[in-house]
């Protein structure tokens, strides 16, 4: 049984003009000790999915169905207080987008870690401090800097503090939302490496959210490609990188020239992401899809498994796609 089983999860934002279906019937699994990468354009619902799992929704966001099972327990059904106490940080912790801002500037970094420990574990303050110092040490930060403020740290160090903080309560799963976006390339790879090492060492599961496929390629086992609140392609990283089967996935993968040795032109897909208030009928990708025809406009494709390695694709035209054919090339 997978550590995390997400089935048919739906989360909508209520706005003045109707519901924004940010997460719409999404299903995936994360096995213990494995990492799942979630990729997609900005606004496709990646971050929404992460906050849905941790139930950190803004007041207008609401889960409209589906289940999230952690170790077999449906955490969607837990009441808020229960969830806060037993799941957050204890079972699932998170590394946020833009670590710069994930630390409260007016509190000392150490205290922010201690706070997390004390919130969940019945330990003395001194003990918590000790553990926090260990954690800092573990991510390669001198524990003496415990009493300093976030603004005294560099970006990479802050990110490492955030990682240390995420590890504070020995969670089973870490959700990392764009953990490296704001960092420069050198620091990025350092942080990624540190994360990878820790994950391996502690046998953690991870859900990594990014728009940067190369990051996923470096760190993840599986990948789910999201488009307009839905997963359109899901499977093993290598499999998908080698043979993307969804037109969107194909476009996305091909737009990262550095995945494979060969150099291709960087390009972006034509068109705009759809408005999630009123997503297109049928396949949500059809307005941008070069293969779209009538059926794509009418019927929503299901995520079905094709081939081996549980590679799943949601596309009517999957038969038309020959492996390796670049439909986006002119």
């Amino acid at each position, binding site marked *: 049984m997978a550590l995390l089983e997400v089935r048919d999860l739906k989360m909508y934002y209520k706005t003045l003009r109707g519901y924004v279906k940010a997460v719409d019937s999404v299903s995936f699994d994360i096995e213990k000790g494995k990492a799942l990468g979630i990729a997609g354009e900005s606004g496709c619902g990646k971050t929404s999915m992460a906050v849905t799992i941790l139930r950190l929704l803004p007041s207008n966001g609401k889960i409209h169905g589906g289940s999230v099972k952690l170790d077999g327990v449906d955490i969607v059904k837990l009441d808020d207080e229960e969830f806060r106490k037993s799941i957050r940080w204890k079972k699932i912790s998170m590394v*946020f987008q833009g670590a710069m801002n994930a630390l409260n500037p*007016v509190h000392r970094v150490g205290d922010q870690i201690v706070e997390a420990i004390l919130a969940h574990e019945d330990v003395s303050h001194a003990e918590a401090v000790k553990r926090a110092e260990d954690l800092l040490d573990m991510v390669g930060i001198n524990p003496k800097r415990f009493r300093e403020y976030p603004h005294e740290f560099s970006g990479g160090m802050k990110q490492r503090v955030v990682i240390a903080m995420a590890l504070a309560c020995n969670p089973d799963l870490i959700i990392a939302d764009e953990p490296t976006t704001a960092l420069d390339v050198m620091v990025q790879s350092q942080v990624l490496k540190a994360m990878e090492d820790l994950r391996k060492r502690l046998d953690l599961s991870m859900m990594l959210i990014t728009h940067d496929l190369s990051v996923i390629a470096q760190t993840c086992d599986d990948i789910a490609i999201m488009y307009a609140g839905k997963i359109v392609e899901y499977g093993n990283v290598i499999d998908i990188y080698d043979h993307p089967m969804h037109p969107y996935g194909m476009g996305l993968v091909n737009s990262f020239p550095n995945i494979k040795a060969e150099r291709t032109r960087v390009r972006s897909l034509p068109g705009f992401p759809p408005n999630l208030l009123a997503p297109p009928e049928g396949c949500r990708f059809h307005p941008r899809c070069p293969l779209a025809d009538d059926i794509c406009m009418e019927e929503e494709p299901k995520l079905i498994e094709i081939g081996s390695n549980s590679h799943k694709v949601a596309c009517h035209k999957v038969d038309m796609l020959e492996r390796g054919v670049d439909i986006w090339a002119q």
Partner: protein
Amino acid sequence: MGFSRYLLKRLVYAFIVVFVIMTFNFAIFRLMPGDATKMIIDPTFTPEAIAELRRQFGLDDPPLVQYFKYIGNLFKFDMGLSFSTRRPVVNELKERLPNTIVLFLTSFIFTTIIGISVGIYTASKRGTFGDNFVTGAGLFAYAVPAFWIQLLLLMLFGYYIPILPIHGTMSAPPPDGFFLQFLDRIHHLILPAGSNVLVAFGSWALYTRNTMLEALGQDYIVTARAKGLEENVVLRHHALRSVLPPIVTLIFGALPGMVSGAVITETIFSWHGVGKYLMDAVMMQDYPAAQGAFYLIALAVVICNLAADIVYGIVDPRIRVGEGGAK
């Protein structure tokens, strides 16, 4: 330590500002057309009497001497003699300052309390009526002329439903007994202070709400929530704590504006304070008095700014620890 250096820097800067204001003060009144003493000369004065007055007001010295004398005197709070009363301006200001402080502090405290608590309350209740109300009140506060609201309130409660006094700080004669006098004072304070609060709290509430919302939308708040902290802790320890610096900035930043506004409030409600003194002096072309009042107001603003800098330094560690860190 960084903080004392920071403090010193602010002090030096405040001193420079005071000096510039003094110079400015000196300059504007000497540059004006006409002879200031003309105002005080009475048809019964002989040329000797006029000359004596000119000497008394120091108008016969060369400008540079006048300047140094002036600056020197200002440091001693000697602001000269008022043209219209021929009393030391500083004495007259001393008589009026307590009234201004009372009005100012009352308005300030109530505006702060009401504005900030309404702001925090509505920030936690997004999209409700209260929220829209604050947005409306804030915009209104920005767009509406304060003196107009004050005039309307004055007309409503002073004339149409005459339940509140329309001028001054106390009844004449005041009632007997300390407690009754205190109530009498409060009775006189309701309109001016109340109108100030009414006009100003909206923008404070809106600002607090926006900063609070911004803070609540910050990643570290999400982090704090994700950490499984209690909502209460998140609000108090993380959100409120982090909006303190901007709110302190707002509080102290609004002080000069409120001091400036005192001129109008005091004029409308015939509140016998420094602002009204300035207005009267300007109207009567009593330049030493106007200079003195302006100097006092400007000084108050500089002090407020300095206080803001200091408090800000205390609540925001990024400043306390000095110029280092990520900037």
